[in-house]
C-alpha cells in the first residue's frame, strides 16, 4: 500500500455543451452557489461533439475523473446531438466498467441552462465520489 497523500485533490475534466450545461454552470456562478474547485471545464458546442476519445484521453493524461454534461433530451440546440451522444456514452461507460475501471470515474448527466443548482450539485457529487476513489491509477500514462 502506498502512502496516502493528504494533499491530494482530485482533478476532474468536465466537457460541457455550450448551450445548456455551460450556461447552467454560469448560472451556478451568478447564484454564487459554492462547489469544490476540482473541475476544469472544456466548452464544446454540443454533447454530440464529444468523442469517447476525449474521455479516454482525459483519463490517460492524468484526470482522476471526467464529467460530461449536455442539454436534456429534447432541448438540444442542434436538435439531436445529445441523443446521438447518449448511445456512444452508454457504450463507453460500459466498456470502461467491463475492463475494471471504477465506474464512478466517468459520469454523464444533463444540465439545462436554468439548472444552476443542479450543476453545483453534480460537481459536488462527482468530486466527492472521485475523492473517495482516490487518485486514478489504471489508465493514466506512467513514466517509463
Amino acid at each position: 500500500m502506498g502512502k496516502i497523500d493528504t494533499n491530494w485533490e482530485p482533478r476532474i475534466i468536465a466537457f460541457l455543451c455550450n448551450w445548456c450545461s455551460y450556461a447552467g454552470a454560469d448560472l451556478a456562478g451568478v447564484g454564487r452557489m459554492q462547489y469544490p474547485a476540482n473541475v476544469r471545464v472544456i466548452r464544446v458546442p454540443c454533447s454530440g461533439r464529444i468523442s469517447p476519445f476525449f474521455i479516454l484521453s482525459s483519463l490517460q493524461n492524468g484526470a482522476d475523473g471526467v464529467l460530461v454534461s449536455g442539454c436534456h433530451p429534447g432541448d438540444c440546440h442542434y436538435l439531436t446531438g445529445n441523443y446521438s451522444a447518449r448511445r456512444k456514452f452508454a457504450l463507453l461507460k460500459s466498456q470502461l466498467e467491463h475492463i475494471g475501471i471504477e465506474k464512478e470515474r466517468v459520469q454523464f448527466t444533463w444540465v439545462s441552462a436554468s439548472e444552476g443548482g443542479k450543476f453545483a450539485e453534480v460537481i459536488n457529487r462527482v468530486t466527492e465520489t472521485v475523492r473517495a476513489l482516490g487518485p486514478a491509477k489504471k489508465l493514466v500514462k506512467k513514466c517509463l
Partner: protein
Amino acid sequence: MSSTQITGAVLVVGGGIGGIQSSLDLAESGFKVYLVEKSPAIGGTMPQLDKTFPTNDCSMCILSPKLVECGRHLNIEILTNAELKGISGKPGNFKAVIEQKPRYVAMDKCTGCGDCAEKCPVKLPDLFNKGLSQRKAIFRLFEQAYPPTFAIDKEACKECNVCVKLCKAEAIDFEMEPKTQEINVGSVILSPGFEEFDAGLIANYGYGIFKNVITSIEFERILSASGPYQGQLLRPSDMKPPKRIAWIQCVGSRDIHRVNNNYCSAVCCTYAIKEAIVAKEHSSIDLDTTIFYIDIRTYGKGFESYYKRAKEEHGVRFVKSEIHRIYRDDNENLILRFSDDNRIREEEYDLVVLSVGVTQSEANQKLAIKLGIQLNQHGFCLTEDFSPVKTSQAGIFAAGVFSGPKDIPETVMEASAAASEASGILATARHSLTRDKEYPPENNIIGEKPRIGVFICHCGINIGSVVDISDVKDYAATLENVVFVEDSLFTCSQDSQQRIKERIEEYSLNRVVVAACTPRTHEPLFQETLRETGLNKYLFEMANIRDQCSWVHQRQPEKATEKAKDLIRMSVAKAKLNEPLFQTKLEVNHSALVVGGGISGMVSALAIARQGFEVHVIEKSSRFGGIANNIHSTIEGSDVQVYLKELIDKVSSNPLIHLHTETEIQDVSGYVGNFKTRLVIGEVEEVKEITHGVVVIASGGDIYKPNEYLYAINPNVFSLIELEGEIAKKNKLISTSRNIVLIQCVGSRDDERPYCSRACCSEAVKLALELKKLNSDVNIYILYRDIRTYGFKEQYYLEAREKGVLFIPYDVSDKPAVEAINKEGKDIIKVTVNDLLLNESFSIDADILALATAIIPSPESAKLAGLFKVPLNEDGFFMEAHIKLRPVDFPTEGVFVCGLAHSPKLIEESIIQSKAAASRAGIILSKDRIESNAMVSTIDKDKCSGCGMCVELCPFIAIEIDVIDNTAIINEALCKGCGVCASSCRCGAVDIMGFTDNEIYSMIKTGALECWGNV
C-alpha cells in the same frame, strides 16, 4: 428623405417572444427595427415559464439564444423602460413618440457584475417571481436578462449611495431624466402581450387569502430551477413538499357568471397538464395530481398525445367538474367542493393551482385607444378572419396575445406574419436604413509563430477579491508563446478595449486570451475588438475565471487561484492552435417555390411577391383553392368563396407569380439559396427545370373517409364538409329534416390517429348555427368528447347552446351506435348514444347524420418529405424545426412549411402560418449572399473512407457523399457546427473549425496533468 419616400424602419412594441421574432425577421431582411419594451429587459413571459409544452423543453434554454441574437443585432435598437406615446403619419411614413424612463444605471458602463445588488439594503417583493421571493432596489429582471445591465427601481430606492460607492465602473447616475424621442418608421407591429387574469376576482377560491392557493404562473416560478425555491416543489405556507395538488381550470375564462369572460384562454388546459407532469417529475414522493376541467382542450399539434401520456404514463387524474368553492383547514390544507355524478363531493389538497386565463391589460387597451385601434368585445385587438394580423389602422399590425389568447408558436407565427405584412409595405425601402459594420482588412497570420496576449480581468472585486490576480498574471507570463500579460479592473470597459487594441499592435499579438467572465455573453464583444485591429475574430479564447471560478469558490481563494491558472493555461494551449476562420459566402437565387395551390400556398406566394420576389406556385390538380373550395363560410360568418376568388385573382394577376397547375415535382437538388427543381407538367408530362432560393411546402391535407357510422353506405350520412356543401346547394333534405345528429372525433383522437383535428368542433358549431338559422325548429344533437371551441370561438358554442343545440358527451370506449331503419315508412338513421353527463342511454331518429371526420396528412407529404429531406412526425404531418420557436422552419435551411401540411388548423390560422413562412423565406431571399457559419465541419478527403456515418447523423442534412471519390462533402451553408459528425468519424477525417480534435485535446492535456500546477 422626401416625404413620399418610404421609411425602411419598423417600430415593434413589446419585447416578448412575439416582438423579438418580428424584430429579428425584419432586421434580418433588411429593415431597421426599434424594439420598445416597457420593462428593463426583453423576454416577456417566456423567461418566467419553467418548461414548455408539449415537449417539456426548458423555456429559458430555448429563449436565451434569441435574447442574445436580438440584443446584439446591429439593426435592432432596443429601447427598454420605454412606452409608445403616440403615432402620426401614414403607412410607410409614421412618426412615433417614445418615452423612455431613466434606468439610473449607464448601460454603456455597467458590466453586469452584480456587486451593487449584493450590497443594496432595500428589499422588495420580486415581481418576476410573482412576489414569492425578494429582490433589491437595484436589480436585474432575471439572470439571463438582456440587456444584462442593472436598473434602479427609483420608487423603492432610498438613495443611500451604497451602490454608487461600490460600483467600480461608475455606472450609477441618479441624475438621469426621462427622455422622449420621435422616430420615423414605415410600419408598426404591436405585440405588447397580456396580463394574466386576477384570480382575486373569484372570491370563492380564496386566492390572496389562502396561502396555498396560487396561480399557474406562480406555480411556474416555483417549478423553475432559477425560481424562488430553486426548483424545489414546495408550498408557500410551510415550505413543505405538497403531496396532493389540484388544478382548477378556466379561472377567469369561459365564465359569464362570475366574471364576464365568454372566451376560452386557449392555453390553460395544456399548461396545466404540463405543470402536473413536471410537478410529478420534480417531486421526490409519489405526488397526487388532479385537474378539474370543463373540457380538455388539447387541440394543438402534439397536445392530444401529451394529454394521453399525462393520463396513462404519469397518472395525472382528470375530473370533469367545476369547483364551487375552496375551504381551508387548520393545516392550511384546502378542501375542494365540487359536484361529480350529480353528487356534491369534497376532496382535500395541499396545494391548489388556479389555471388563470389571459386578459387584455388596461395599459394595452389605452394604447389601442390612443392609436385609434379597434378592440373586440373582449377587449382584445380586433382582427378579421382573412387578415388576421391587420389592425383597424393601416400599416399597424398586431401579433401575439394582444389580438386574442394563443400559445407561443402561434404568437411566433403571428409575429413573423406581421413582419411579412410590414415588409410587404416597405419592400422598396429595404436596406435603406440598415447598416453593415466596416472592418479593416485582416492580417494574414498563417505561418506566424503564435504570439499570445493574455488579458486578465478583476471584474471590479468579483474576480480580484478571490483569485490572486498578480500570482495568476506572473504564472500566465511563463506559459509558452505568451508574450504579453496585463490585468485590468474591467476588461470589457471601453477604455480596456482600446488598450487591448493598442497592445495587439505594440506586441504584434496574433492570438488573444481574455480571462474574465463567460464567453457566452462577452466573447462577441472581444471578438469585435480583434476584428477592429485586423485580427481574425477566431484567434480568440476566453478563460471563464469568474462565473465558473471566483464566484463559485469564494471560500477557497487558493484553490480558485490554482484553478484560474489552469483555465488560463488551457485557453492558452487552445489559442496556440487557433487558426483564422472564414465564412463562406453563397449566392442566393431570389425566387421562391411554393408547393401547393390552396389558400396557404397562395397566401404565402402573394406575401413573398409583395416583398418583391419572384414565386413559382405548383399545384398538382387543375384547380387552385384546395380544400377551401368546399368551405363556404367561417364561423364568424365571412364568405370563404368570395375570399378565395379574390385570392386567386390576386395571385393570377401578380406579375411576379408564376402558376403551374397539374404539376408535380420530379426531383430536387441543391440547398438553401440554390435549389434546382425539375417539374413534370400536365398530361403530356412536359419536364421543366426551375431554380429557386427557398421552398415553401403548403401541400395541404386531406379529409378522412371513415368506414364506420354508415358513411358512404347511407345517402343521408355526410362528413361535415359535405354537409356544408349540401347546405350551400340548398338540399331539400336539410330544410325538411327534423333531427340532425353530428358525431365529433370521427377518426381523430383514436388509436390510429391519436391527434385532435382541431377544426371540427368549430366547424360543427358553425354548421349547427347555420342549420338553426335555416330552420329554428330543427333538433340538432352534437355528440362530442370535449368541445374544443378555443379562444373567441367559445362565444359561438355559447350561442349554439342558447339556441337549443344539444351537446351530448360520449365516451370513446362506448361510441354512439348507428343503424339505418325504416320507421313509419321513412328511412331514418337511428343513433343511440350513452350520455356521459346523465349517464343514460337514448336514441335519436336522425334524418341526417354528419360526421366530424379527421383532417389527415396529404398523401403527397411522404414524397415531398423525401424530395426536400425534411421530416414528418408520427402522424404524417411535416415536423417543424422546433415546435415552439421555429414553427414554420425545418432543420434544413431554406425550406418552410405552412397550412394543413403542418397540422390540422382553421383557415385563419393557415393564413397566419403562410404569411409567417413568407417572412422567414423573405429573410433568405432579401440577401444577395448568405454567409455560412465559420465554425463548421471540415473533411480531410485523404482520410475519409466515405462510410456515410456523418451523413446519417447530421441533423441538418449538411453532408453528402461525393459519388466520384466516395468521400464526404460538407455543405457549409447548412452546417451548424454541432460536431456530431466529428465525434463519430472513425477515420479522423472530420473536424470542427474552432473546436478541432487537436484544440480540444490540447485542453484535455493541459487540464488533466496534475503537475502543471507546480510548474
